[in-house]
């Protein structure tokens, strides 16, 4: 049992979910690809049209589902394909970040950036930085502990029929 | 107002007369410069090269000393210098620290200190402009230096590198002019106010240094100046003492007195000319001052 755990720990790679806008950051990530810039493979990108589409619920759900870190990224101010989407989302994030921090979320696990379609290097740097930091922090156990507990309960209920 | 003062080596030794003039002026204008205890050389002779920890240790020690002295004695939270070179070195040290925290960490561990790169370094001219105000200086002038055509010479250290020093526009500065105007001088604009006097090659290639200095004097003379005023004791020395050497190559050259700005300032603020020592000036300015009716 304990051996298994040690082994698990060795193969652990962070699970990072990135919510990015289609026009800037997704383009920047594509450009990193076309420029063959290598970076850490732990990030999984979910593409939205605009950062304005990114709902706080997405971030909550990602943590619930075991994300170790979250990256949210879009166009620089003034560059939004939809003119003002990123300005509105910036306010939303300001409040939501505060709420997460207040409620005890580890803020080292949630990152925000502006990355334009031209900033392949920045994309690479940010992703590497987030991965590196997450690796230093290790798995995000707060939610995982709850998840395990819930699983346990579900087991008990199942047994009881 | 009491400001921690860093004299630097030159003003405390060879050019002590220039410092006395500054002290007199400060008093006349209602502030005092408190010489910080136990100071060391700013490191002007150890240039701020990229990886020279030693180059930074000297100035950092000075910056820390000023901060501590200021706090202990309840002085203004800044550090005033008279010498343009000291000013340049100290200011650029802070700039380097603010750009590169790792550098600061290295020096801090070397000095076993906790310096934050935040000692506010100002040149005496800045105190006059920003804290006293040239209007106030003008009011305090008891003897206007009317009719004296002065070419303000900044040299290189006070203005450059602009992004690191940031005292004034490197090509169209106004601070020195502002002061001289408030003293009643006629300010002469000339092309070489920010050129180098050649001090860096004064030891290795004196001839070259003399040539650099000559071009400055020549440009000032062409612009009609009676005298060049400097903000740096080193420039003052170079422009002044090398004139004999210049004459060898430029026979028709007319001697020009080189006056340190604190000398002019103290004169205007009422210091008895008889009490001003011109020992630092190898071209005696007195005949000229007499001619202009200022003595």
């Amino acid at each position: 049992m304990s051996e298994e755990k040690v082994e698990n720990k060795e193969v652990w790679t962070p699970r990072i979910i990135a919510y990015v806008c289609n026009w800037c950051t997704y383009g920047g990530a594509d450009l990193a690809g076309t420029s063959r810039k290598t970076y850490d493979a732990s990030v999984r990108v979910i593409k939205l049209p605009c950062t304005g589409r990114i709902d706080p619920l997405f971030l909550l759900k990602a943590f619930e589902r075991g994300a170790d870190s979250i990256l949210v990224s879009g166009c620089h101010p003034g560059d939004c394909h939809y003119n003002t989407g990123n300005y509105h989302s910036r306010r939303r994030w300001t409040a939501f970040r505060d709420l997460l921090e207040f409620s005890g979320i580890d803020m080292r696990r949630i990152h925000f950036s502006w990355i334009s379609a031209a900033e392949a290097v920045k994309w690479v740097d940010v992703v590497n930085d987030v991965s590196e930091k997450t690796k230093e922090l290790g798995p995000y156990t707060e939610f995982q502990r709850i998840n395990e507990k819930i699983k346990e309960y579900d087991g008990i209920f199942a047994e009881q029929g | 107002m009491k400001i921690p003062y860093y004299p630097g080596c030159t003003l405390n030794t060879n050019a002590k007369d220039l410092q006395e003039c500054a002290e007199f002026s400060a008093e006349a204008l209602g502030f005092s410069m408190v010489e910080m205890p136990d100071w060391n050389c700013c490191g002007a002779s150890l240039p701020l090269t990229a990886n020279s920890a030693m180059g930074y240790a000297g100035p950092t020690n000075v910056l820390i000393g000023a901060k501590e002295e200021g706090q202990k004695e309840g002085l203004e939270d800044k550090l005033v210098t008279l010498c343009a070179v000291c000013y340049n070195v100290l200011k650029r040290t802070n700039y380097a620290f603010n750009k590169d925290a790792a550098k600061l960490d290295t020096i801090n561990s070397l000095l076993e200190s906790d310096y934050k790169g935040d000692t506010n370094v100002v040149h005496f001219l800045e105190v006059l402009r920003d804290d006293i105000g040239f209007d106030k200086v003008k009011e305090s002038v008891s003897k206007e230096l009317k009719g004296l055509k002065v070419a303000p010479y900044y040299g290189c250290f006070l203005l450059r590198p602009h992004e690191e020093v940031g005292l004034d526009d490197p090509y169209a500065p106004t601070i020195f002019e502002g002061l001289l105007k408030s003293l009643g001088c006629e300010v002469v604009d000339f092309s070489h106010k920010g050129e180098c006097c050649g001090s860096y090659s004064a030891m290795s290639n004196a001839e070259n240094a003399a040539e650099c200095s000559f071009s400055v004097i020549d440009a000032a003379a062409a612009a009609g100046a009676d005298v060049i005023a400097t903000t740096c004791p080193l420039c003052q020395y170079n422009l002044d003492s090398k004139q004999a050497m210049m004459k060898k190559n430029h026979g028709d050259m007319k001697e020009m007195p080189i006056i340190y700005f604190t000398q002019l300032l103290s004169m205007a603020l009422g210091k008895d000319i008889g009490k001003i020592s011109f020992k630092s000036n190898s071209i005696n300015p007195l005949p000229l001052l007499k001619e202009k009716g200022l003595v």
Partner: protein
Amino acid sequence: MESLQSKAKELIKDASVAVIIGYAAGTKKGKTKPFFAYSEEDCEKLIFTPECVNNLTIYLTRKFDFMKKGKVAIVAKGCDIKTINVLIQENQLKRDDVVILGVSCEGVVDKDVILDRAELTADLPEDKKSIKCITCDVNTPSDFDHLFGEGVESKAIEPMTGGIYDEVDKVRGMAQGEKWNFWMEHFERCIKCYACKKVCPLCYCDVCITEKNQPQWIETSAHERGNYAWNIKRAMDLSGRCTFCGECDRVCPAEIPLNLLNQEMAKLNYEAFDGYRAGYQTEEKPPFVSFKEDDDEGFIR
């Protein structure tokens, strides 16, 4: 109170309003209850005392049918009127459709306090007041059609300080893990009864996100995961809107300190968005549907 009753009668008599929403004595000692006066006779039961803690503005929302009956009069404290302002701002109410019977108020009782008769007439001591009253600066309502009670000078307070905000600061001061444990201990008790949602005058959606299962953003089970999501979602939705009537906190059977969450958001909005405070006006757009180009973005790289 006679004047409140007589004004109410007058409004009913000349049919200016269909109903008057107010307070009447409760059946339990120390409690009052919401009361709806349709007749002049009913109006005699209307009272206003420091026991009138409820925020009656919930009856102005689409959760109830009162607004369909015609023009409505409501007995409202200064704090309740803030809710009315937000409802107007959010297109849920037209100012002309409601007659505000504003009452001056020096504070209402805390949910855990039962007052004696004698105490009812005396000045209410601070420690028996509801926590929202400690930081109240609308003792005399800002907007009303008729005002009752002696005019009380509204306190000049420094916004977002004292009272609940001291508690908020305490939580802010905790370490991250401490905060997490603090909230998890509370959320663990949540039984998903949704009383907080039911009582909130600003939770007026016809179909709540909790009632949707495609997708199931908020899990139905009352475990910490679902409870965390629910309480965070609710706090987020009330960000820039909550007027601190404190009703959710008052009704929570699990005694989760919901005021803390909502007032943290209120404080954040005040700090981050140019001193915005919900409920103080009806014209300005709330923070989440407006922006400034130079809003702070220190957290974004």
